[in-house]
């Protein structure tokens, strides 16, 4: 079952098996996709989806124990989980935005109905997200750790403290890095426009 698989992998990573990390991503990716799909099935058209809420739901589902004494915040493997979740969420969102963009340009295979408002809103969001994705890729080339921090904060909604916890640095460091990365990415995005 997915849950025990994920737990097992996280244990392996903790025990130094770096190979295990590569197995984590597809599992988490699939789980998030499935959760998103289920949400979509129950939501009406146009309903909004909260990616960061999704990640936390996946965390509860895949990692944190159901047993009462098992405090998820004490779980050592959570850093790996959130890193994988952030990466997955980014891929899912970016892929989604790309496809929608393609459809709007008429390249899609399926016709989709959009209301006028949808189109305007989505277009903006999609364009922004894609440009952020590009900028993030550039940042990763310059400073991979910084990009990882942004990815954690932005795509999983971790707070400063949680991010600090996961990365094993002080909250002050996270704040300073975030401030810098935030300005850096904005500058990069502006330059593209």
């Amino acid at each position, binding site marked *: *079952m*997915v*849950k025990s698989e994920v737990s097992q992998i996280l244990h392996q990573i903790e025990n130094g098996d770096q190979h295990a990390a590569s197995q984590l991503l597809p599992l988490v990716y699939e*789980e998030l*996709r499935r959760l*998103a*799909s*289920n*949400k*979509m*099935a*129950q*939501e009406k*058209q*146009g*309903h*909004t*989806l*909260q*990616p*960061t*809420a999704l990640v936390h*739901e996946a965390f*509860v*589902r895949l990692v944190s124990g159901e047993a009462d004494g098992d405090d998820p915040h004490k779980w050592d493997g959570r850093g790996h989980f959130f890193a994988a979740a952030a990466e997955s969420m980014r891929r*899912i*969102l970016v*892929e*989604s*935005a790309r*496809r*929608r963009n393609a*459809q709007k340009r008429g390249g899609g295979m*399926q016709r*989709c109905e959009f209301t006028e408002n*949808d189109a305007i*809103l*989505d277009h903006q*969001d999609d364009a922004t*997200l894609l440009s*952020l994705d590009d900028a993030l890729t550039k940042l990763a080339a310059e400073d991979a750790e910084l990009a990882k921090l942004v990815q954690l904060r*932005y795509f999983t*909604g971790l*707070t*400063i*403290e949680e991010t600090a916890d996961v990365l094993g640095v002080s*909250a*002050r460091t996270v*704040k*300073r890095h975030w*401030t*810098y990365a*935030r*300005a*850096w*990415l*904005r*500058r990069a*995005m*502006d330059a593209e426009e």
Partner: protein
Amino acid sequence: MSRPSPRTVFLEALDQETADQRDAYLASVCGEDAELRASVESLLAAHERPANPLDQSPLTSPLDPTLVADLVGPSEHIGMTIGAYRLMEQIGEGGFGLVFVAQQDKPVRRKVALKIIKPGTGSQEVLARFDAERQAVAMMDHPNIARVFDAGVTKDARPYFVMELVRGEPITDFCDRHGLSLRDRLQLFQDVCAATHHAHQKGVVHRDLKPSNVMVTLHDDKPVVKVIDFGVAKAMGQNLTDATIYTRFYSMIGTPLYMSPEQAAMSGLDVDTRSDIYSLGVLLYELLTGTTPFDRKRLDSAGYDEMRRIIREEDPPKPSTRLTTIQSLNSPTVAEPRDDSTQAAEARARRESIPSDLDWIVMKAMEKDRNRRYESAAAMSADVRRFLSEEPIEARPPSRGYRLRKFAARNRAALLTGSLVAAALVVGTAVSLYQASVAIAERNEKEIALRDAISARQEVESFAERLKTANVLLGNARSYEDSQQYAAADSAYSEAVDLVPNYYLVWVQRAALRGRLHLWDEAADDFAAAMRLEAPIDSRQWEGAAAIFHLTDRTNDYRAIYSRLMEPPTENPPPLNFHSIRACLISPADVPDARRLAAEIESMLARSAGPPGGPWGPGSWGRPNRDRDFRRDGPDRGPRPLGPNGFDFNRPEPGDPPSAGPGFSGPEPGGGPRRPSFEDRVPQSVMQYVAAWASLRAGEEQKALEHLDAASNSRGPSGDMVHSLRAIALHRTGETEQATAEMRQADNALDKAISEAIESPDQRRPWIDLLEMIILHREATREVLGTDAELDPRLVAVQQSARDLLRL
């Protein structure tokens, strides 16, 4: 010396207090290095730019459907042949299965409904379960159950069912649209029970009974119930294990509204016929009241765990407490009350109570403990029959011991919803009434004692019951308010007010909502009502009450709140808290009072000043403990909301310390341990502003001006509220020209604040700020310019539209 990185220089530059200091710093570090300087400058510019996408949650629009949906779309099914059936048109879709209208040609020519699981969701387990279940499903034969004609497995191992095609509408829609009387509704419901009982006897559990699975069709103008999908849920492999059920949870059930607590618990406990009984209870509830026991929006917006908790722990309000338009046993109804937000007012006027026997029937079916439910659908149906023929029903009010346990559970629920006050009130009243009844009993005056005890108990029980319902309403109202559905929120608050008018909390909550919508008169009425109920008035929720009383010329009410704050009826009253001081400063009774207020705020200010280089001192990066403000720390250097930390303290926070209520003794005389104080979070500049106000009231204009300067110069929330006070102070010190100039700034600041309040009604800024600005601006206009300030017409318009919205 090596060249510093742009990152280091950028962060250091941000730490500089003023623009000048920043320039000086950049010049000293970059020197001749134009490239470095340009890089840092561009970062700083990017930092300051508003609307950085990173400050928003990644995406709030729906994901692209082609990404998350399964790869084979419905379009690829149409025209496909499965067994002897040709798929024609898709009529339904869950996360799990697809439903089509299919054409059968042999042996008979007819249209059928074909339900097939989606590609990729099958497994060996599913197939095994399917084989076991299809036999059972085929055994069912009942006029109120849609027939299952056939079942099979496709070449790509996907199980499917072929069922009677029912052309009808969900039972709830049918009843509402045809305005069925209570009797007709109950008779249809009995047919649902009969169908369910038949299936249960064949060993088939539905697991997903809900209106969309209980269809009504017309046969010769006679409505006929058809339950569809019996046993299909289980046969199609839903509900396999805890792990899969979680993932498939939403898709399987679609909605948790009809789900039994044991299904919600997902404890691995076998789901049996009793879960269906629970769902029947929910269905009957909805047929009677037009609403589901738990609020749809609330369950939708609750997180997964919260949703499970609600279903497992909360008791829904009894049907009789809900609004209904079903007028009597036999007369048909006119309209359906499904949209409760808009029609609540009319519905209330036409309200007829649901007979309490039906309450018992519904609540027995919906017992959290499945052992306490009806033992069968037939037994439930029999009770409905007894009700219709006016015989005594089987479902009875539970025993005293049982009620006592329920009582404890209710209090726990109250605690969980954060309503400690409510709990204290219930317990306090219950205990004292119980003690009273015991004392009377001990006097051994048999009859009187017995009667008193019974009535006392009944009183407690009915009060507790209403209080419970009111708490649910308050919870609903708060979530409506959070989602900015103000009409619905107000209507829920009003319902709570009608239900427990002696409970101050309901008044205070409604007052806060109305105050937030600028409905000062209405809010003042509610605050006044709460005050007469001896509500504790030093809690945060009361902030704004005094200002509203003053602004609406309710002098007596203002005096009442003032004297209760200044002279609380306790010995050694504790020092006034921050917002009590603000409330009293609006109009102090005399100079000694004003001096006392000034002294209290001064000492508060001294306490909070802390060590040098404190919260907003130079050199510290951002502000400690303010991460939620963190993202807004960048570009926005404008005046901040004066509420501490932008925090809307008109509303209680979850986990707020309880306000003292009748059940509490209030603050410890002699000052117990100081609880983690709200004052600790008030920014210095706000304290300075209040201190200036107090100095002015105490006749110390010079000191007031000093405080005002401090409030303006601070980097923290300096506020646009200082101008009126400064104008008055200047005027009194003879600086007439400066005072007039300051008045113009006060005009502008007020104008801007009103625009902001109107443009973003959901501002996080506490509405007390605006009230104080208006009050002080009026005062200053009168004193400095000698004219009367009119109320801004825009506010009048906003008030009118808020009244229209709330139908006041």
